[in-house]
C-alpha cells in the first residue's frame, strides 16, 4: 500500500455528446493534501467517481494504490478509502449508531470505533436518534464519521463544508488536519477555498473537464501573476510623495484621505516596499498577496487563456 495513492493518465469521460473530463493527468503523493477547485459541472464529482471505481473512464488509465479501481481486487482495496459524498444523506429509520455500525460491518472495521467516532464528530447526544430526523449539519457529521471508519489511508471529500455553519466548519478543519498529521492522503473539493488555503499542499483547478492549473499556492500565485496589493496609510500630504516615489513600479490608487493602495506585479513588491520604507510620514504598510479565491476566480473565468492577469 505504499504505492502512489492516486494516479490518472490521459483520463477522459464522455456521456454521449457531453465531455465531463478530458485529458486529465493527475497524481497525488502519499500523505499529500490535494485540494480540487472548479465551478459546478467542471468535472470534480466525475473525477471522484472514477477514482472510486464507480464509473469507468472512456479512455486513459487510472491507478489507485497501484491498481485499477475497476480490477477484481478493487472492491477489497476500498477498505483503504474513506469517501464523503456531496450532500451526504442517510435514509430510513435506523439511529445514528445503528447506521454507523452498518457501515462499519460493510467495511470490516471494528464496531467499537463507532461510538468514539460519533463523539469525535460531536454527535454523542444524537446517537440514538433516527437519522432521518438529523439536520443537514448532523448528516454531514455522520458522513464524516463513516468516512473515518477503519482508518483509511486515502480520504476523498466532495464539497465537505457546503452548507455548514462557521463553527462546524472550524471543527471539521481541525478533524481533517489531525488526519493529515497522521499521514493520511487527502483529496478534497471545495467552493470555500479559504477553508483550505493554508493547509492544502497543492491545489488543482478544473475547468470544463480539464486541469487548467496545479501546484502549490506559491506556484499558482507566481503562475497567475495576479497583482499584489500594498495598502499604505499616509496622510494627504504624503500621498503625492508616495505616488512620485513608486509611480513607475505600481499603480497608485487613492482609497481615501488616509490611505492609498499600490497595485503591482508580484515580483515588484519588495522593491516597492524598500522605497516606501525610506519615506517619512508613512504610518502603516500592509501587503496583501492574492487570495486563493482570487486565483480561483482567475482560472475559473478562463483569464489564463485570454492572457494577462485579471484586474
Amino acid at each position: 500500500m505504499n504505492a502512489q495513492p492516486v494516479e490518472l493518465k490521459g483520463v477522459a469521460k464522455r456521456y454521449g455528446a457531453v465531455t465531463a473530463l478530458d485529458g486529465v493527468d493527475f497524481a497525488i503523493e502519499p500523505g499529500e493534501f490535494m485540494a480540487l477547485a472548479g465551478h459546478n459541472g467542471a468535472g470534480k464529482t466525475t473525477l471522484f467517481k472514477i477514482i472510486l471505481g464507480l464509473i469507468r473512464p472512456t479512455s486513459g488509465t487510472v491507478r489507485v494504490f497501484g491498481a485499477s479501481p475497476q480490477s477484481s481486487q478493487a472492491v477489497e482495496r476500498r477498505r483503504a478509502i474513506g469517501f464523503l459524498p456531496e450532500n451526504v444523506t442517510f435514509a430510513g429509520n435506523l439511529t445514528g449508531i445503528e447506521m454507523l455500525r452498518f457501515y462499519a460491518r460493510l467495511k470490516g472495521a471494528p464496531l467499537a470505533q463507532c461510538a468514539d467516532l460519533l463523539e469525535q464528530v460531536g454527535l454523542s447526544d444524537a446517537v440514538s436518534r433516527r437519522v432521518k430526523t438529523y439536520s443537514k449539519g448532523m448528516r454531514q457529521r455522520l458522513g464524516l464519521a463513516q468516512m473515518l471508519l477503519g482508518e483509511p489511508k486515502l480520504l476523498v471529500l466532495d464539497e465537505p463544508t457546503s452548507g455548514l455553519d462557521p463553527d462546524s466548519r472550524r471543527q471539521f478543519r481541525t478533524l481533517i488536519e489531525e488526519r493529515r498529521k497522521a499521514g493520511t492522503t487527502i483529496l478534497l473539493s471545495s467552493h470555500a477555498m479559504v477553508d483550505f488555503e493554508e493547509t492544502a499542499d497543492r491545489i488543482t483547478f478544473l475547468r470544463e473537464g480539464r486541469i487548467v492549473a496545479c501546484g502549490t499556492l506559491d506556484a499558482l500565485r507566481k503562475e497567475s501573476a495576479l497583482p499584489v496589493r500594498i495598502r499604505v496609510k499616509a496622510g494627504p500630504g504624503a500621498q503625492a510623495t508616495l505616488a512620485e516615489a513608486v509611480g513607475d513600479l505600481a499603480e497608485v490608487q487613492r482609497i481615501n484621505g488616509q490611505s492609498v493602495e499600490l497595485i503591482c506585479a508580484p515580483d515588484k513588491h519588495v522593491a516597492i516596499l524598500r522605497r516606501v520604507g525610506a519615506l517619512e510620514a508613512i504610518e502603516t504598510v500592509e501587503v496583501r498577496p492574492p487570495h486563493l479565491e482570487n486565483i480561483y476566480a482567475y482560472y475559473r473565468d478562463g483569464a489564463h487563456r485570454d492572457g494577462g492577469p485579471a484586474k
Partner: protein
Amino acid sequence: MNAVLAIAGREIREGVRNRWVLATTLVLAALALTLAFLGSTPAGTVKASPLAVTVVSLSSLSIFLLPLIALILTFDGIAGEAERGTLLLLLSYPVARWQIVLGKFLGHTAILAFATLVGYGATGLAVGLTQETGAGGWAPYLAMVGSSILLGAAFAAIGTLVSAIARERAVAGGLGIGLWLFFVIVFDMGLLGILAADTNQTIGSATVPWLLMLNPADIYRFFNLASFGDVSTFAGLAGLSESVRIAPPAMLGALVAWIVVPLGLAALAFQRRSV
C-alpha cells in the same frame, strides 16, 4: 459474505422499525384465520379435512396477496437508494454490486418468510387445536406454507430486478404493479383466450401445464391444488389425468428457477447501471 449479511440485516431491522414486518404478519394471519374458520363452514359434516379446505382457499388468496406484498417491499430497494442519494456512498464501500442485490433480496425474503410462517403457522395451529384435522391434512398445509415462502421469494426477486433496472422509484413502482397484474391476472386470461381460440388443438393438453411453468403464480397454484389428492378433489382438479401432471419436485424446481433467474438478471442489470 459479511457484506451480504450486513445489508440483509439492515433491511430486516428497517422492516421491523417501520412496522412492515408487523403489518405484513398481521394481514396474513388475519386473512388466514378468517378463511380457515369462515371458509371451512360449508365443509360442514362432509368428510373433508378442514386443513385441506383451508389450503384451497388460502392458496387462492395468497396468489394475489403475496406477490403484491413482495413487490411493494422490494421495488424501492435499489431505485429508491439511487433517488435518495444513498447509493453512491454504499457503492464506495468494499462491497460488490451483486452482494447488494443478494443482501437486499435476502433481507426482504426473510421478512416475507417470517410473516408467512407466523401468519399461516398460527392459523394451522388454531385449526389443528380446534378441529379434527386427520393425519393426512398436515402435509398439504405445510407444503402450502413452504411454497408460499417460495412464491414470496420469487416475486421479491422480480421486484429486485425491477428496482435494479428502473431509473426512478416511480417507474419501479409502476413496473411492479404492471408485473403483478400481468402474472396474477392477465397471464391466465391470455392463456385461456389462446386455448379457447385454438380450436384445432395445436397446443396439446400435455403442453398446458408446462406453459403454466412460465408464471410463478401459476406454478404455486398448480403445486398446491393438484399435488395432493385430498386437496385436488376440493379444488376441482381431480380430473386431471396423470399425463398432464408435473411432478411436485419439478414444480418446486421451477419456482426456485423463478427466484434464481430474476436475481441473476438483477445483479447483471445493477452491474451495468451507471451512478
